């Protein structure tokens, strides 16, 4: 279900309707003021020069009939009768129409179309562009104003002035003002004060387009104009740089939330059992494949549920990968207690087996996992573009984090996990079944990885190698954040994600990544137990 999208479209419709009403009222109030008899008479001469000048006059006439006349001319339906005086008509399926009133005419004289050549066609295009500036539809006016702002065609200036004098819609008015200003900046022979005012208008826009316009100030402009432009450019660049940083921070948070999802399960197994689970990435991969299977089943049996596929896949992925995790713990890991490095090797072996199993079952190529409608699309805050997919992943990562925190804080098994993390032997002496806690921890960690897989299926290729690309980063997050502390993982994931994205613009994606790896390596020298090291009195053997 997509309530927000529905609400948005409903709101848009209402607004558009209101704006259209206002525009119609305005237009009807002004119809009488316009006299277009002169250009109409010129058109009946069927002379290219006369037609072109008539088009120019019609475009700025502001007459409500002008658009229909220009359109008729473009379609070859503008006709004239050869009697004296010649009369002009628009030919329609119902018969001839008087162009000045747009009412049908009673008689039907013999008519010839007004001829058109390439020069006229160009003039028609220009005229219809100008005419849409005064079109009754505000959306069309806005579009036309933006088109003029992009083209910066000085010929549109009179039409712009006319449209500005009549425009009431504030949004369109802003667009028109901007379009006018962008033309004025680049035009020769404009008074200095006008130009400076135009620079201020454009400068206030503060985006990439404005920057391009401001850079078009002619070289022969007066120093005052140049100074104003330079100041405006500097202001925009500062503004853009700020938004750029904000965008990178956003990307970083998005990457960080992915890292958080991938690493947090790893962190709790590492914390409780002192075991690095090299097969953790494969649990993520399995979760993504669970999503794929769920979507395939939905597509086959009940396509209407597609928007719910991720919601359905999340608990299934948790249960499935959690179960696999418990099986791995019971059959392999529990025989390797106290041999952390060998556990690392055994789980690496398991990861190879799982990868190959998926490759055998589903093939080595990427599988298609679709995005439900509520995850696609994006919206903008200022210069910041935010996609719903990324936003939901951040929300989901934080929800998982909070849920895990709640499990650790509020449930008995969470209490036992924390006890075993702090001191395994003491916990065992107090009657905690440490091996049961181990199995549950491993299952929980793997289950969270599976849920991460559901989220990652939305932003990455679902292939047997999916887990491999996250495992090294996840390790870094865990050792950076510190073991046995989920807050450390949160801080570690977010800071590595943001640092990565902030380094990228300066160093490039690969060098930025390398720099980050080196920074983490150096950081671990400084704090060998991570950012939030577990404090205790025990000493390593």
């Amino acid at each position, binding site marked *: 279900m997509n309530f927000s999208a529905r609400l948005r479209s409903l709101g848009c419709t209402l607004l558009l309707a209101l704006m259209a009403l206002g525009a119609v009222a305005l237009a009807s109030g002004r119809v009488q003021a316009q006299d277009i008899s002169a250009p109409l008479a010129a058109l009946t001469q069927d002379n290219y020069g006369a037609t072109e000048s008539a088009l120019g006059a019609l475009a700025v006439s502001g007459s409500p009939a002008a658009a229909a006349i220009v359109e008729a001319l473009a379609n070859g339906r503008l006709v004239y009768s050869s009697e004296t005086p010649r009369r002009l008509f628009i030919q329609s399926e119902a018969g001839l129409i008087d162009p000045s009133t747009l009412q049908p005419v009673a008689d039907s004289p013999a008519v010839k179309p007004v001829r058109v050549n390439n020069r006229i066609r160009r003039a028609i295009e220009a005229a219809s562009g100008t005419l849409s500036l005064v079109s009754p539809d505000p959306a069309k006016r806005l579009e036309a104003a933006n088109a003029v702002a992009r083209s910066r065609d000085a010929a549109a200036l009179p039409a712009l002035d006319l449209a500005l004098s009549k425009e009431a819609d504030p949004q369109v008015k802003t667009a028109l003002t901007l379009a006018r200003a962008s033309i004025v900046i680049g035009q020769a022979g404009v008074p200095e004060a006008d130009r400076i005012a135009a620079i201020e208008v454009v400068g206030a826009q503060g985006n990439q387009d404005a920057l391009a316009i401001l850079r078009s100030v002619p070289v022969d402009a007066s120093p005052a104009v140049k100074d104003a432009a330079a100041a405006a450019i500097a202001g925009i660049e500062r503004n853009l740089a700020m938004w750029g940083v904000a965008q990178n921070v956003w990307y970083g948070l998005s990457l960080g939330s992915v890292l958080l999802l991938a690493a947090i399960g790893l962190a709790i197994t*590492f914390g409780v059992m002192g075991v690095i689970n090299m097969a953790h990435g494969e649990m993520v991969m399995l979760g993504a494949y669970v999503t794929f299977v769920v979507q395939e089943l939905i597509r086959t049996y009940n396509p209407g549920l597609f928007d719910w596929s991720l919601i359905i896949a999340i608990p299934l992925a948790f249960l499935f990968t959690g179960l696999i995790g418990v099986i791995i713990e019971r059959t392999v890991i529990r025989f390797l207690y106290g041999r952390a490095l060998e556990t690392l090797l*055994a789980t690496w072996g398991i990861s190879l087996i799982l990868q190959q199993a998926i490759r055998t079952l589903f093939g080595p190529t990427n599988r298609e996992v679709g995005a439900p409608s509520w995850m696609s699309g994006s919206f903008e805050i200022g210069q910041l573009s935010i996609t719903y997919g990324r936003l939901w992943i951040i929300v989901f990562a934080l929800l998982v984090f909070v849920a895990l925190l709640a499990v650790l804080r509020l449930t008995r098994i969470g209490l036992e996990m924390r006890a075993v993390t702090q001191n395994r032997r003491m916990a065992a002496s107090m009657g905690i079944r440490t091996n049961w806690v181990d199995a549950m921890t491993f299952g929980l960690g793997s289950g969270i990885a599976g849920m991460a897989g559901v989220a990652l299926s939305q932003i990455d290729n679902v292939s047997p190698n999916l887990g491999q690309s996250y495992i*090294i980063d996840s390790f870094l997050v865990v050792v950076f954040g510190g073991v046995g502390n989920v807050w450390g993982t949160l801080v570690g994931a977010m800071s590595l994600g943001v640092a990565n994205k902030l380094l990228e613009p300066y160093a490039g994606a690969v060098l930025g*990544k390398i720099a980050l*790896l080196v920074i983490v390596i150096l950081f671990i*020298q400084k704090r060998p137990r991570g950012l939030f090291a577990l404090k205790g009195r025990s000493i390593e053997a």
Partner: protein
Amino acid sequence: MSTSDTRQPALLTTSGLVFLGVLVAAAVLVPVLNLATAPDSPVHVPTYVVSLLGKYLTYALLALSVDLIWGYVGILSLGHGAFFALGGYAMGMYLMRQIGPRGVYGDPVLPDFMVFLNWKELPWFWYGFDLFPFAAIMVLLAPGILALVFGWFAFRSRVTGVYLSIITQAMTFALLLAFFRNDMGFGGNNGLTDFKDILGFNIQADGTRIVLFVLSAVALGLGYVLCRFLVRSHFGKVLVAIRDAETRVRFTGYRAENYKLVAFVVSAMLAGIAGALYVPQVGIINPSEFSPANSIEIIVWVAVGGRGTLVGAALGAVLVNYAKTYFTSGLLAPYWLFMLGGLFVAVTLFLPKGIVGTFYDWRARRRASDDIPGAEPAATPKPAE
């Protein structure tokens, strides 16, 4: 080591002598069977097999270098492939310079890929690689200096166990990314290849291949003797002590980090030599050698053969790679990863001491039951983390 054992153990034990004997036999027999027998003779060894065996021997040397630090110091390096690859790149750069004007673009100085990238002159770090002695020194120095810097930082701040493993993995991953970049000047994605000759000898010729094979065997033998010499010395005993109880060693007044650093650097240099011998026999070096998965695979060779036995590491490397060659070509190819993965699990679960370690145990038990006085106790280390 048990407290009753006060003697200095012999430099070469029975198994060491057997190992060296096999190596000498191979170094003599393989060339003879390649050169002196007719191609259709049943005992003829084709040249591609000579190169394949030579590749296994370089892997064995690499495994030996890992065993020195993992088996005797307890440093599980998941980035040893990086040192191997660096040695390989140093050799590859020499071989590239040897191509000279015979490249596709015919540039007398610049290797093909630099011409392709429109570079005008040789980057400074390629200077000197036209001279073999310089390249040979760099084979040792490039991995050695990286290990020195990395180890100095890591051991001084007492990064141990899993943490150390992870950052060694991060190190090789960073190098992987770096060497993939074209503007690093190491051939990017494609690496270095199309070698023509080495020291004036055609690299494709049978004779050159055989010499490279024999050199690999010699390097492996010398590497083994060096490692034996190190681990049975006083220095080696401190290393084992660090492996088993680093804090206690520190409290006893030893600078544990210095001992670890020396072992780490020696091990990295051995890996570099292995890489340098590997490249001319395989004919290519590219960034995939830096991939973390490769480094982890080295660990399984050592684990299969027997950690902390040296001979076992070499044996494991040859066995696993023979199995890999055998299984990845043919019907079983899709199942190779199942086998490799299963091997990891099975060895850690059922054969924690590896093949050679288990054999030592068995021999020690038999000697104990035979009650032979003065029997050498099994030199099997306890895994300790």
